[in-house]
């Protein structure tokens, strides 16, 4: 029984050998790829691959030897012919004792860098001095004429690193620090030792195996030539080369999911421009004209553009809200200026889409209404591991006569639950355009602490009255989205958000929700 089992295994093994492997098998004792190459005519890559397969099958043991070979580089080859720059310079100085810099460079035909290097090298050895633009021989002439260690070393190449003497290693470091004189290559050689099983198979007669079928071809199928023949067994456990497929950008995978969440909750999408007037981005959102966010150091303003403002009536209402002229509000107690509202900028938040949408809702008398947005926003900021000048925000508004603070919390809880955050914390915050305002923190299970995610609140009467003519409760929230994305995709550096490193993108997992 046992013997039969073993024969069976050997039979399977034989059936699994590819034609190349069978070709190589008789020459395994050659121990050297070049010889196998001579005998079989197979190229080296195929031989190595087949040897690896044979090794997987336990027919051969492979031992890799590494060897470091030092050869002449591109400039090295040139210098071998013409001499090192310092040699060429030495020869001239040895001849003339004193020579001007220009003349020396001209005669030695060295380029600026080579010439500098040559001067440096001779000065280091105290063979020359520079006086008033002249090179003066200051050491012994023999010092100049003698071949240096570096030159001896260069002439001795190619060499194996392992055989270098200490002074030669010193020369190696010297020359390697200069451009392209030396090339250091690691060369791997493979030593081949057939195993016991391998030895056995070397003796095997493979003439029958030649009848085994390799690939199924259309002809084969058509003719039925495979009847009564065996298919070569594959090594099904051997690793396969990776492939990669077409993929949505990871940020868009996440925003698509957020969008789906919004739609499920009955929200309509709002979109709009990225370049926008200060009027919509700030003034309509009751952000005082002297608020620091409106300064150039925080926000990208566009040069040479002056925006048109919407109809006069709305502009006057907004002005009134700022100046404390709408009923019940003190406003900002200052004089609101139209020019400031006309500045064009890149939106700093998607809330500017909400306020523009509110106006449309008012015109269409669409109550109740729920809208969302997902989009890029901008801030004037340098890029580092935690910041960028572009960021993603998601935004939701609920317009309903009966909306209240408890409902705002309800929507937030639901939205973040769908985004994968069961545990959220709500705490007081401040935004010029919402009251009450709040901040949403999510509990970070790895850091074991609360992490700030973004703001929310109910629009102030100074925001709603200019649009609707009266105060309607509007719930609004606009958390940043990048933190959620970075966390899911395990990105630690903000620069990777838009790095577009194709290898990284290929290996990135997909958004699983």
């Amino acid at each position: 029984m046992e013997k039969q089992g073993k024969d069976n295994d050997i039979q399977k093994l034989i059936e699994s050998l590819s034609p190349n492997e069978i070709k190589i098998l008789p020459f395994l004792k050659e121990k050297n790829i070049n010889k196998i190459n001579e005998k079989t005519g197979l190229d080296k890559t195929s031989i190595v691959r087949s040897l690896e397969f044979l090794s997987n099958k336990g027919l051969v043991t492979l031992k890799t030897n590494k060897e470091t070979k030092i050869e002449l580089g591109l400039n090295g080859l040139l210098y071998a012919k013409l001499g090192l720059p310092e040699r060429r310079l030495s020869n001239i100085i040895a001849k003339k004792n004193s020579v001007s810099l220009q003349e020396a460079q001209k005669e030695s035909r060295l380029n600026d860098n080579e010439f500098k290097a040559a001067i440096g090298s001779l000065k280091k050895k105290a063979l020359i001095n520079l006086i008033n633009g002249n090179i003066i021989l200051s050491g012994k002439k023999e010092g100049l004429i003698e071949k240096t260690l570096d030159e001896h070393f260069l002439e001795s190449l190619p060499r194996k690193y392992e055989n270098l003497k200490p002074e030669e290693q010193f020369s190696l470091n010297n020359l390697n620090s200069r451009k392209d004189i030396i090339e250091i290559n690691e060369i791997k050689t493979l030593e081949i030792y057939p195993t016991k099983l391998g030895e056995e198979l070397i003796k095997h007669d493979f003439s029958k195996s030649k009848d085994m079928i390799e690939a199924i071809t259309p002809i084969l199928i058509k003719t039925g030539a495979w009847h009564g023949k065996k298919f070569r067994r594959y090594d099904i456990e051997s690793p396969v080369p990776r492939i990669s497929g077409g993929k949505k950008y990871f940020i868009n995978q996440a925003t698509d999911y957020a969008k789906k969440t919004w739609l499920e909750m009955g929200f309509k999408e709002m979109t709009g421009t990225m370049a926008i007037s200060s009027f919509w981005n700030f003034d309509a959102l009751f952000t005082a004209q002297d608020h620091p966010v409106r300064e150039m150091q925080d926000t990208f303003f566009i040069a040479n553009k002056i925006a048109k403002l919407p109809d006069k009536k709305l502009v006057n209402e907004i002005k009134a809200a700022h100046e404390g002229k709408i009923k019940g509000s003190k406003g900002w107690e200052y004089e609101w200026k139209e020019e400031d509202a006309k500045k064009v900028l890149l939106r700093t938040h998607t809330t500017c889409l909400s306020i523009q949408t509110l106006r449309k809702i008012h015109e269409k008398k669409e109550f109740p209404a729920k809208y969302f947005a997902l989009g890029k926003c901008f801030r004037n900021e340098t890029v580092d591991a935690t910041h960028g000048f572009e960021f993603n925000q998601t935004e939701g508004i609920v317009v309903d006569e009966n909306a209240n603070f408890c409902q705002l919390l309800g929507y937030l809880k639901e939205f973040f639950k769908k985004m994968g955050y069961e545990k959220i914390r709500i705490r007081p915050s401040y935004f010029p355009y919402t009251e009450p305002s709040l901040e949403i923190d999510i509990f970070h299970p790895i850091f074991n602490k609360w992490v700030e995610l973004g703001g929310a609140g109910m629009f102030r009467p100074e925001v709603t009255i200019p649009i609707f003519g009266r105060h309607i409760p509007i719930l609004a929230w606009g958390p940043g989205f990048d933190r959620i994305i970075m966390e899911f995709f395990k990105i630690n550096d903000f620069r990777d958000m838009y790095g577009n490193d194709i290898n990284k993108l290929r290996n990135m997992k997909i958004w699983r929700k």
Partner: protein
Amino acid sequence: MAVLTLNRKELEKVIGKITPELENKIGMFGTPVDKLTDEEISIEIFPNRPDLLSFQGFTRAILSFLGKKSVKEYKIEKPEKDYKVTIDKSVKKVRPHTTCAIVKNLKFDDEKIKNIIDIQEKLHLTYGRNRKKLAIGVYPLEEIKLPITFLAKKPEDIRFQPLEFPREINARQILSQHPAGREYANLLKDEELFPIFIDANNEILSMPPIINSHKTGKITNKTKEVFIEVSGFNLGYLKKALNIIVTALDDMGGKIYSMEINDKEGKYLSPNLEPEKMPFSIDFMNKTLGLKLTEKEIIKLLEKMNISYENKNQSIALIPSYRTDILHEIDIAEEIAISYGYENFIPEIPQISTIGEEDKISILKRKVSEILIGTGLSEISTYHLSTKEKQFKNIGIKDFKTELIEIIDSKTENNILRTSLLAQSIEVLSNNSDATYPQKIFEIGKIFYDNEENETKIGEKESLCISLCNEKANFTEIKQTLDYLMRMLDIEYEIKEAEHPSFITGRCAKLMINNKPAGILGEINPFVLKNNKIKMPVSSIEMDIEMLLA
């Protein structure tokens, strides 16, 4: 973001040991703890609460919130002889207002002096918008002779020794030589006359908003009484700032004295610490918050926020005179909510019916990307901001007619809005020359152009750019991809010969939809490839996808 950093031990003496529960409670008051060490606690103060920017202001608020203290009323003593400040009309153009007070009975130590300077600096920076809106001066009363005059003079005629400076110099020299002068020079330098405070001996006390005099403007351990002025443009703001400071000094044990301010419009006494009356409706509070609070409950909740209540046929909240943020009754709603505790609200999803709807361009973008991904392409995403060099020179465009849309003072090298995606796509291929080929990428995103019709004078449209990069990339391959996309979307198109500096002549075409140009495609010029260190041929298309809308 303003951060208040306090000595932990000092604070714990007043509010008790800072346990994780108390830390959380402080956050739920709207002042999140930013950093907590054994020595210090840093608390974030939102810009609407400058009154919390001091040890005194913060502890006053938090003690009430924790129910450990009730609403404090501040008393003001009547002005004594010569407690007067006259505002001369010369100063009206440059710095029209000031409001002032005197505080006595102070026992300064180093910690308290630091506190005072801290409040002053923080108010300058936040509420005072870096001294643009207002500036505050505090002077030892012992060094000056009342009454005070606020007036303006030619800078050449103003001479004094500024704080921490070795000698007397004139006002112009202060702006160019003194560190504070240099920092804030732009606030004064174009004025004809500069504002100064002088005392009864004609001694200059300060030149706001720049610097105090070294002689009369330095608080020391020996200082027991101080004169305080706030000067600037909006009297309402100045009064608030003054109230914030004098109440903090009162909390330190000081006694507030009022001064008579003589302005050409009339006389008044300063400071005024009477609470402001804000009428509100209990129904509106409950409706906004989704609660059912009684008047009694609201009174209790407001008390925790240092707000008193009275009812004269109408609910009225008495807002402490140092609060700057109560603009409307809606702000009372937030006071009640914070006091009630955000954690105590019960989240609720209302039964209102609305129908979700995706934007039509969003749908199109999603469909286009699905089709392209199906052919094995991968999506990339690049910045909307770029540089002239990247957008034009790098892809072989030497002279461009497009008006550039430029950003003012960008902190990064990127200072224009992108006008095409092609350049970005080539840049990505260039950065990835060591990744394995084929590299097949696309991007859908906004590009920007001039458009006088729009509100902002800037046009924006969604563009699609595909780049195929591999050994055999050619015109056929990109045209096949386009053809597949158009067939799947059921859109007819035409291809016409075109020229473009980024593409090889004779292998470049324009895409026409309904006889209108909609894009450009072809094989990228090897000059561009070499320039960008791309090792393989590239064929690309950039097209306007809004034209694909059905």
